[in-house]
């Protein structure tokens, strides 16, 4: 039973005389007041947030409703910027390039996010197992390395590794092929099938990773998975530590099926972590620029032309800041909607 507190201003409240001699009720719970010191400490953070977060956002909204092409700055200075209402937004509906890039980005998201989640989960479960402590420590540290690598460097590494003439990946492929050849006579039947398959997939023994549209898309995906799977693994590993050991032990006594333990005991504790991964990775992929730009510049054709590369091109190559701002605001809205969906359908607190 919750005890009902009497209303603050009743006749039962003690009273004290005010300065003017008038009787004022004494509050049962004194109002929380902040000293100027607290405001002083909070102000820098709030000011920085306003300066680097809120103001640019509002400025982008303002830009998105005006014509703002940088090379016309002098004309604007003399005559002002034309106010277009929502014309820049409506223009996006007819912009086939924008629609295609957005669709491609969603395909990228739908392929990569599940892969990263599943691989991250597997790594987290392996690291959660008892034993081999020193090996697990090494793994934990090495998981941080991809995360600590600058995005543009990841792209440049990818460009070198997947280079069709001298990349290390094609070198590995060639080594595997020569291995097949050397052990070929021993594996007569299997070798024929494998070799036939291989020749079908790789006609010239040199895979054209970045020159073939589908493979270029796959290559960018591989680099993204390489960099961000460890992030998923670390978040899920920390979620696994939240599972009370006694519950986990009891569950393991009940069943020897690991997926039952995972599904019924561990997964519910991981849902907040999974939701965080979904939100952060979705936002990251929607604004993924550096890796694609350094690896393929959106090519070949428009095979890897993800939405942020497209927006950057409109904003900084065509210098149409108005349209680019409208595109960026649309992306922000999509990110917010997806985040709300994730929270609604995935987020559970235990």
């Amino acid at each position: 039973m919750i005890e009902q507190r009497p209303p603050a201003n009743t006749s039962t409240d003690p009273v004290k005389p005010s300065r003017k001699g008038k009787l004022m009720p004494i509050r049962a719970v004194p109002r929380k007041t902040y000293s100027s010191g607290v405001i002083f400490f909070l102000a820098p953070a709030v000011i920085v947030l306003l300066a680097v977060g809120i103001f640019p956002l509002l400025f982008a909204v303002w830009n998105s409703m005006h014509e703002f092409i940088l090379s016309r700055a002098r004309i604007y200075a003399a005559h002002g910027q034309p106010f277009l209402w929502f014309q820049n937004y409506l223009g996006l509906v007819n912009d086939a390039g924008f629609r295609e890039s957005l669709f491609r980005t969603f395909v990228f998201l739908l392929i990569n996010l599940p892969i990263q989640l599943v691989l991250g989960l597997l790594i987290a479960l392996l690291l959660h197992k008892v034993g081999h402590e020193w090996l697990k420590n090494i793994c934990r540290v090495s998981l941080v390395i991809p995360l600590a690598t600058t995005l543009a460097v990841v792209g440049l590494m990818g460009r070198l590794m997947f280079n069709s003439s001298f990349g290390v990946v094609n070198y590995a492929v060639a080594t595997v092929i020569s291995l097949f050849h050397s052990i070929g006579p021993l594996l007569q039947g299997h070798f024929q099938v494998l070799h036939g398959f291989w020749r079908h997939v790789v006609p010239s023994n040199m895979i054209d990773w970045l020159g073939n549209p589908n493979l270029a898309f796959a290559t960018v995906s591989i680099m993204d998975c390489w960099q961000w799977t460890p992030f998923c693994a670390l978040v899920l590993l920390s979620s696994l530590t939240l599972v009370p050991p006694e519950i986990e032990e009891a569950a393991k006594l009940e069943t020897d099926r690991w997926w039952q333990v995972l599904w019924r005991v561990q997964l519910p504790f991981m849902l907040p972590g999974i939701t965080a991964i979904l939100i952060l990775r979705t936002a990251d992929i929607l604004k993924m620029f550096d890796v694609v730009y350094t690896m393929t510049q959106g090519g070949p054709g428009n095979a890897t032309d993800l939405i942020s590369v497209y927006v950057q091109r409109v904003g900084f190559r065509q210098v149409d800041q108005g349209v680019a701002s409208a595109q960026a605001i649309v992306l922000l809205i999509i990110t917010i909607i997806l985040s709300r969906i994730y929270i609604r359908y995935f987020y559970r607190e235990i």
Partner: protein
Amino acid sequence: MRRFFCNFIFLLLSASTQFAGAWSLEEAAKPYSGTEVSMIFLDRPGYNAIIKLLPDFEKRTGIKIKYQIVPYENTREKEELDFSSNGELTVALVDLVWIGEFAEAGWIVPFEEIKKKYPDIIDPNFDINDFIPLILNAFGTWQGKVYGPPFDNYSGLLYYNKDMLKEAGFDKPPETWDELINTYAPKLTKNSKYAFALQSRRGETQSCDSFMRFLWPWGGSLLDAKFHSNLGNPKSQEGLNFRQSLEKYMPPGIVDYDHSDAVNALAQGNVAMITEWSAFYSTLVDPKNSKIVDKLGVAPEPKGPDGRKPALGGFSLAVASQANDKQKAAAWLFIQWATGKEIGKQYVEAGGISGRQSTYKDPALLAKYPFIQPMLDSWQQGVPEYRPRFSEWSKLTDIIAEWGTKMMLNQVSVKQGSDEIGTRTEAVLKDAGYYDGKKPLAQ
């Protein structure tokens, strides 16, 4: 009285002649000593060359040169943001395809204005007519007005591996594109070695170095006289189809080849010929990067049915309008010195490419740098509007980059790709106001 006047005029004339004869950089720069000039440089040989020579200029003039090195891909956006927000740049580095935009936006000052406003700082020996006419016209001139002299100058050249050609039975490079594809290419493409590499990566590399290269020599062009698409023209189609046919003599994945990849393919002996900018000569003769230092041959680009119209690219330097009066004068003094006759030879020796005819009159210089003569030959026959130089190029280059690579990947046919580029180009130009007379038809 008459005698007095005669003497006075004589004195005046002799003083002015003496003054003109005595023009010196040090004297002209005195009022501007201590002024700071800021600009953007690229990480390319021409800029490294001028950086080497800069201390001499600073010592003689007292003008401080502040530069930041920026990748080419970010230069335009950086300059545009700076000029549109009254930033700190006092000299504009103007790529040939930016001149229309910068001039129309009023970001750069015409040479005539500088001459009128600061007559004392103009070197009587500057001689604007000494610059090679094609590159002065293409890099530094917009609608008949000169904005700045050419500074970092390129022409497309044919680089080839002499040994590979010799092994295949050729003692000289192909003179025409037709010869290249029919006679040279089949013999040079074997055992994972290829006859030719054409840098075609999406971006300016695709639009400028790959797509446009196969229009002009065939008599085609991107736009006709009224600025409608000219890609449907049989000559343009012939050139673009030629590019498709040439692809089978190029390494796989050519649509992902950037400049460095094409240069590297030649330098490592994997391809026999490339058409690349003159600036890459220093990379190809550097033993650290190249295996073909003593096998390298340089020639002008091959001729097409319509003659030799090689790729043309380069940068001019112009005074930025946003600079204050003192900075403008100091900026011009720097530009005048950096592109002047006086340092022309030193600039070339340091790795730059001067745009002055007088620099190349020295036979020793031509003998020392074998790429110079083919480059000079190329500059006699190029077209200034090799790429349109109006501000809409920034949109067109993206359209061409996308559909040009799609053509090379056979995702669309040459005809479909040309139609797409044509339709989209015309939509951009219509919006810009070229078809209703709002903008003059200048490229």
